[in-house]
């Protein structure tokens, strides 16, 4: 009986939290007009959320592309189809790995930082202090960070894919001797702008919204102690990563499925 009660209690707590998170998202969206009047706030956050994530995204993209080049070559060469390496690398990246891996890295690099920063601002009464100065922290602190994340994520995913294609080129053409003309021309012929690239972009926008939403909400909702902030940061990375992977399945089924 106790276990059952506990289950119900946990479910109620989780639902309440989801409700709070939804209201929170709504309030953030309402903060967009006033943010557009103060673009410097947004630009500053695009720098710390987006630009500072560039290094990890570029390096990871390069290596993921190179590994794709190697693994793809070893499989394709058995069928004499190594000329299709460019298509394989590009499709894997723009459809799946670009948005997904970039979002996972983004959750670890930028998401955790956002949660920790906002949580600590809460713990040190900075958010409360702003409220008492008649400044709405949702508009002044949270909204710029949220929209900076939403804006940065598709760009980071695009950069990841582009660098990944270069990585595949280095491994396939540079190291293994695939014909460079075939590599590029097949890629050009078979990668469709709407079907492949736009769907990838839509995915990365969805991931950007979900990851940043989780990150800023966990920070804002954190228990204002050092332990609470550390837990919130962990939760951000775990929830955001799982949400990205789960959402990816749903989006893939909708976009590329025949159902």
């Amino acid at each position: 009986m106790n276990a059952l009660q506990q289950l119900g209690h946990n479910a109620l707590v989780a639902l309440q939290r989801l409700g709070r998170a939804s209201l929170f998202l709504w309030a953030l969206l309402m903060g967009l007009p006033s943010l557009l009047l103060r673009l410097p706030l947004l630009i500053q956050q695009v720098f710390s959320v987006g630009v500072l994530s560039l290094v990890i995204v570029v390096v990871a993209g390069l290596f993921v592309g190179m590994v794709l080049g190697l693994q793809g070559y070893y499989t394709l060469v058995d069928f004499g189809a190594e000329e299709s390496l460019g298509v394989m690398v590009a499709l894997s990246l723009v459809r799946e790995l670009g948005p997904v891996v970039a979002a996972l890295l983004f959750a670890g690099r930028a998401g955790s930082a956002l949660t920790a920063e906002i949580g600590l601002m809460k713990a040190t009464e900075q958010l409360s202090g702003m409220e008492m100065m008649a400044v709405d922290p949702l508009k002044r602190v949270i909204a710029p960070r949220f929209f900076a994340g939403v804006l940065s994520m598709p760009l980071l995913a695009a950069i990841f894919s582009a660098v990944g294609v270069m990585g595949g080129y280095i491994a396939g053409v540079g190291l293994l001797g695939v014909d460079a003309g075939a590599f590029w021309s097949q890629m050009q012929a078979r990668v469709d702008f709407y079907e492949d690239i736009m769907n990838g972009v839509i995915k990365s926008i969805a991931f950007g919204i979900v990851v940043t939403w989780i990150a800023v909400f966990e920070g804002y909702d954190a228990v204002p102690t050092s332990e609470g902030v550390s837990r919130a940061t962990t939760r951000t990375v775990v929830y955001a990563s799982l949400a990205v992977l789960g959402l990816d399945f749903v989006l893939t089924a909708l976009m590329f499925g025949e159902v």
Partner: protein
Amino acid sequence: MTDTIDNLVVVRGLTFKFGSRVIFDGIDLDLQRGKVTAIMGPSGTGKTTLLRLIGGQIRPTAGTLYVDGHEVPRLPRGELFELRKRMGMLFQSGALLTDLSVFDNVAFPLREHSGLPEAMVRDLVLMKLEAVGLRGAQRLMPSELSGGMARRVALARAIALDPMMIMYDEPFTGQDPISMGVLVKLIRDLNAVLGLTSIIVSHDVAETSAIADYIYVLSQGKVVGQGTPEALRESDSEWVRQFMQGTPDGPVPFHYPADDYAEELLSNEARR
């Protein structure tokens, strides 16, 4: 009904419950304009909660409170924010924005609300910093300040918009004697010079008595004593005298409520 001409803050029958815990149980307070009023009481009596109620950050369960004639719990958000521009609050931690320098912290409310040109903001910030003696520290970051300095910067920020009142949350806690002296002097002087109304929440009896015009003593959700510092020291209530004189035992027992001591020592029950 309530005279809001002499009293800036009027509290009537204020009850606040946190879950099932009663923090305030129908308290009445009158805070006179231009005076320094102290709210005192042991730790955990919800003194900080009272400041949050006055600032409208939380709403009372029952009863009401007026600030400058406005009924705070019923104010719509826009008007509440307008009212808050005229209230300063000094948090215990200072609550400085850690990513901004001392100068930018003091400039923050001016830039957010005043719409003044930057040159004028600069002059105002320098004047406020001069008033708390930290004009020389304008380029430092909050992490480079001592606790006492951080509180003085926060004080400069709280008076940046020339408010009608300032609320101090435990301003003396954890200060060395010198910065304590500085803060005592600043609170008293600012109140007189700027014509403020000050509310101090504190449990430091000596410092608070030195500057308060009137003191309310709270305990267990009730006002247990009120009066001038001199009157309270001679209070009829044994409890208030114990608090004001800081004796370890009295109506407030030294021991946290527990089972019988001998019985617990002699019992064989293994400790969990």
